[in-house]
């Protein structure tokens, strides 16, 4: 029998490992791609400096060498310069610019999901609304984003990257992300199903007979699963953010990762993957803390009743 603290503990350990593990895994994957960036800029058949360039970018001695050099530099705050995505641009400012944009996008898109989940858990949101949410979530996010992108480009033209347009993009992007791909509908029906099955448990009926509230009984038991579901949703949103950011041209981590991968700009990819890992670690820590809180709550000794 696993002790109650093992799961949150594993989550905490994983959260600590993530910022190093995710970039390492991504480096290994990216390394396996055919062709190399030095050869793309300077094809050996028509250019004599390929090897020198590969050496300059630490591409000459395998992924481990590259990753350790990158980590060493990153620890001293040097994330290097972009090779191809935005040739010559320092990566650190790109990362600093991207993290808040992605965080805001995911946060905004999470708000309707969270409200829907609360509504489903408390039965404030009627079951009849599920159908409507399904219909709203029908178009894939890419289509939502594509339509939003066209409208913004036509409306703002050359100002499409101005402050106002960026805000509009974030809001429309968040809507696309939060509603499309059945994100909200899935979250609502998932939590509704979970809570409904919990409500049918015998202990809940006893609780009601004792005059206690339903939520008071069901929530502590269902909360770890709900939190797990919500974290999965946020991870899904983070993943979907890549598409929305690319289509809507939002300067976020997803866009950075996508561009970096397509151009094999390893430095950019690892830095962006690091950003993703940090956000992911924060989510894990949150989930672990909630699990610990719930576990402590349900294990609290009942107060002695004076006779």
């Amino acid at each position, binding site marked *: 029998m696993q002790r109650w603290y093992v799961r949150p503990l594993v989550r905490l350990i994983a959260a600590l490992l993530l910022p190093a593990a995710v970039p390492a895994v991504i480096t290994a994957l990216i390394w396996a791609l055919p062709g190399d960036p030095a050869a793309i*800029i300077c*094809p050996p*058949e028509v*250019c*004599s*400096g390929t090897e*020198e360039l590969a050496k300059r970018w630490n591409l000459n001695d395998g992924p481990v060498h590259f990753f350790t050099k990158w980590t060493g530099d990153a620890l001293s705050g040097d994330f290097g*310069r972009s090779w191809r995505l935005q*040739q*010559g641009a320092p990566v650190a400012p790109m990362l600093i610019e991207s993290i808040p944009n992605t965080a805001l996008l995911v946060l905004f898109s999470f708000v309707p999901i969270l409200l829907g989940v609360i509504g489903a858990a408390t039965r404030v949101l009627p079951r009849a609304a599920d159908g409507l949410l399904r219909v709203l979530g029908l178009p894939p996010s890419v289509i939502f984003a594509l339509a939003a992108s066209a409208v913004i480009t036509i409306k703002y033209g050359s100002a499409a990257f101005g402050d106002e347009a960026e805000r509009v993009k974030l809001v429309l992007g968040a809507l696309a992300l939060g509603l499309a791909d059945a994100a909200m509908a899935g979250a609502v029906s998932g939590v509704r199903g979970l809570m409904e099955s919990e409500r049918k448990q015998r202990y809940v009926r006893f609780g009601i007979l004792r005059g206690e509230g339903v939520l008071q009984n069901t929530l502590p038991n269902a909360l770890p699963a709900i939190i797990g579901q919500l974290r999965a949703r946020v991870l899904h949103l983070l993943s979907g953010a890549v598409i929305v950011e690319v289509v809507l041209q939002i300067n976020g981590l997803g866009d950075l990762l996508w561009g970096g991968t397509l151009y094999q700009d390893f430095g950019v990819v690892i830095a962006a993957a690091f950003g993703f890992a940090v956000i992911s670690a924060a989510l894990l820590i949150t989930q672990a803390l909630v699990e610990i809180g719930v576990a402590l709550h349900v294990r609290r000794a009942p107060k002695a009743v004076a006779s």
Partner: protein
Amino acid sequence: MHSNPHRLLSVLGLAAAALTTGASLAFFEESLPSTMNPLFAQSMVDNRVHELVMDRIYFNDPINNELVSNIVQEWSLLDSGKSIRLVLRKGVKWQDGEVLGADDICFTVKAMLDPGTPSPIAEKQRAIFAGCTVEKPDVAVVQFTKVFHNPLNRLSVHVLPEHAFGGKTAIQPDHEFSLRPVGTGPMKGSSGRRGTTFEKYKNVHHDAGIDTLSLQEGNDPLVQVKTLINNGVQGIITVPPGNRAEVSAQDDLALKSYDLRSWWFVAVNQEKPYLKDKRVRQALDLIVDRTDLRQLSIGVKPGEQNSPCEFISGPFVQSSPFYNRTVAVNARADKAKAFELLNAAGLKQEGGRWHFKNEPITMRIGMKAPLDIEAPDLLSQVGNQLSAAGFDRQEFKITTDDWNLKVLTGQASEYDLVIGKWSFGLVEDVNPLFHSRKDGRGAFNVFNFTNPQIDTLLAQYEVARTDTQAQDAYHKLHALLAQELPYLFLWKLDTKSAWRTEVRSNTITPYYYWTVFDKWRTGA
């Protein structure tokens, strides 16, 4: 009552126009520039933007085609033409306030000669330049590897500032210069994640009529056109043929020709056993119905006047002095003749499919992916025509990276046919396309085609001392290529830009686009 989206867009457009200050322009490019350092240019977008920021030592005036310079006052040949002495114009400044000097000219040459500069462009220049010495602060002597009959043509390289690189001639692509270059051109450029902005820099030789210029990446061509109509931007560099009618229909927009001397081809891999025989390649040339292809892909109806797409029979556009008019184009397919040729070459048709040595032939056809914007569906249509003639086929789109890394370096042997496009400036040097790959020649020979007769003709062009000699060599080359068919030559497709009519004096320079940007004006 119903709402009218056009009216809403027009109101928004007028509002945007009212907010536009006098001398600023925004335009859509095909993509963002990959670098602002001319030594690492990889695309036409790069070539264009460099022209705004940097000066080439010599360039062709787009009006009279003469070789002129903005930064050189006078020149003279030394060592019987193996060196050239350049006296620089006084008072020319870099965009950071430093003075342009002979040391910058020599730095540029030395940077290109430095093997530590990992640039294919520099590598090419190493066959032209031998060195450079500073005679006086404003006099440089550039040495060539040999005597060229058109030395000024060889000086169409962008000048780099020595001080920006700390004097280090081994220039790297990830230097900050690639992002924020310092040039002597009319505009100071700065590249961002979503666009490139240019600000006017007044100099003794440049005084642009536009204060700021904003380059943005254009995605969906239809959205680009709508945004232009709506005055969200003032120009589009390339408008695909399918979207030109909508631009033409607007009173406040004008289509402008951009002479890129681009021609399209289907390269044939003669290293494949069944394509080795010239007769098979000639049969393919007769199977391809260019008229149908043009109609289905570009939308040009048969017999349409002023077509943007003109068939060619060799590696030059029809307006080129090198084009051999005695070689006829195959506008229509001739399957009967094609089948005769295939049978004569030993191919057999069984069950409607062509076989070679009892094996059915499946053609792997590749096309550079971005070309699909200009000629939508061309890949499928070529495939359809081959399929209708009895060849099985597979279609592949090739990324720009793969194109540069594999196709242009002769390593795309997995394909039978690749569809591509070449663009040229005023110098239509096709030697790298058709010369055998050896001793640095034939750098862009797609399928490593080799033919001694053709090599001889290319050598004749290379040593030509007069235009007539060069034309003779290339006319013969044209005729021979039309027989040998390493390429099935398709067409020249006009490139058109669209600009709002309030943008005036906007002369577009062939190939480089922005060479005479100083004269551009905007506003009523």
